[in-house]
């Protein structure tokens, strides 16, 4: 069966810094994969390469068998990869519902309408359903500039879900969320995104979150995959303990 994401011999350098060093990864449909690693290990570079923001120096990236390594973020999104960001990328003057409506508008195959109201009943309903899944309905009509960091993070994820992506990449979904709330937030995120996206890849620093939610862990170090496997196995790996978790588990 063709994997959702297949990466082969992927390389990316920034001057002397090797951000992706001959990466070869295959992610089958339905997996929840966590990317772990210290700052600068290459996790976000990997996400940026897969979503088309960065172009690889060499190597192949395929989404369901189709090469996407040279595509723009827009084309990659249209093909079925969505992402959220470590620092939420929202339209700050718009309300939470309007942010999601913009994302829904982006899913249309036909050109955007000059006359159809943005907040048409069907579009607004769709937006509210997405916000509701993440427990954000009460915030729908609030400008996102007035929302707390954790809420913004969830709005960002709701926007990424609007396209019902084949592959959803979440960059640190629980950063900025308090320790007491991280599990309930993640429960909600995983429950919601599982309905909208088959396969999830999330960058995470919190090993409790990784252990609880990931089917598989990819540990990054200096642009390489240090370990790849089930969370219990990877987190006990000596190199991972030495270079990534610092013996946290």
């Amino acid at each position: 069966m063709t994997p959702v994401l297949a990466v082969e011999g992927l390389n990316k350098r920034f001057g002397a810094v090797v951000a992706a060093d001959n990466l070869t990864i295959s992610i089958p449909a339905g997996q929840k994969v966590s990317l772990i690693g210290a700052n600068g290990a290459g996790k976000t570079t990997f996400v940026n390469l897969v979503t088309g923001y960065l172009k690889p120096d060499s190597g192949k990236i395929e989404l369901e068998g189709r090469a996407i390594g040279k595509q723009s973020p827009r084309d990659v999104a249209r093909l079925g990869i969505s992402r959220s960001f470590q620092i939420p990328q929202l339209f700050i003057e718009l309300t939470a519902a309007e942010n999601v409506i913009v994302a829904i508008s982006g899913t249309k195959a036909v050109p955007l309408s000059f006359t159809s109201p943005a907040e048409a009943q069907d579009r607004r309903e769709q937006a509210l359903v997405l916000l509701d899944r993440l427990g954000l309905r009460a915030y729908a009509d609030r400008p996102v500039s007035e929302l707390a960091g954790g809420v913004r993070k969830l709005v960002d994820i709701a926007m990424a879900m609007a396209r019902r992506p084949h592959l959803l990449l979440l960059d640190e979904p629980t950063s900025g969320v308090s320790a007491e709330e991280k599990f309930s937030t993640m429960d909600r995120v995983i429950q919601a995104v599982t309905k909208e996206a088959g396969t999830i890849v999330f960058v995470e620093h919190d090993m409790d979150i990784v252990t609880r939610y990931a089917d598989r862990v990819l540990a990054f170090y200096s642009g390489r995959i240090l370990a790849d496997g089930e969370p219990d196995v990877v987190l006990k790996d000596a190199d991972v303990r030495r270079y990534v978790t610092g013996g946290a588990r």
Partner: protein
Amino acid sequence: MKALSHPLAMLGIVLAFVLLGRVLPAWTLSLATVAASNSLIALGIVVLARTGNVSFGQGLFYAAGGYGVALIANSFGLTDAVVQVMIGAVCGGLLGLIIGPLISRYTGIFFGMLTLALSMVLYGALVKTTALGGSDGFNVGRPTLFGNVFTDPREADFMLYSVSVIATGLAGIAATVYFRSELGLVSLAVRANNLRVEYLGVSANRIVAINFVIAAVFAGASGALSLMAQRHIDPQFAYWTTSGEFVFVAILAGYQSVAAVFVASLALELVRSFSNLYLPNTWQLVLGAFLLAVILFLPRGIGSLWTSANRKSDQPDAPAPGAAVTEPAE
């Protein structure tokens, strides 16, 4: 306020303004005509500003509309005011269609300076083109309306006022519908974060190009209206100070409200006229002080006076900004 922004209500307001022209003193008709015409081009700048880009060279399309109409009027004897406005809009729009897709790749100051440069290229070309009258330009005949010739100056002024108010009013209604549309909302999203828009599968450049062409259409029509008012055209239409004046109106108005553009344009004309009358040597100083006051006290433009109030009244009771993520109010 919301009822007034229904297209039919707005059409009623436009017609009321036309009828108002019947009772207005003669001197105010020409002032209102200029204000309406300037509103039209400033409205285009506001449409473009909703994508986060400002054109410092709308004079390019203003001149294209004006020269296009003037040449067709003199060559083919086409003097009908409504047709002239349409020709102006088409001339501006066609030029916008050529330039828009190219310039939409740029943002911020690069975008603004490129538009300015292009308008000055046209200015230079017009000054050197003797067939178009060079720096002196050339005259055009009096406009007619549906075959009627207006020899009485008061009637001619009223006709021009009516055409200006209706053309600008219709553009205002179209812009209001557009601002509320899907494309209008995505334009605001481009203004806030164009990369995120791309990540959502939408071409930010395409949105900018569409808004650019709309602005060019409005500028072309405005150029036609100005031509009819002055019955003369010259390269000054494309000069940077002309473009700057329209940006001035757009800054006063802000980008949130269509009505604000008309208010700003009228306010500017009134301030200019009265300061010119009572302070002939320092009227620019008064105008500058007026702009500074608006920027200082209404940094989001005159329109923020009522758009902010609307937003506050529309907002339901919601949790406090710092409320827990996991426990939103139901």
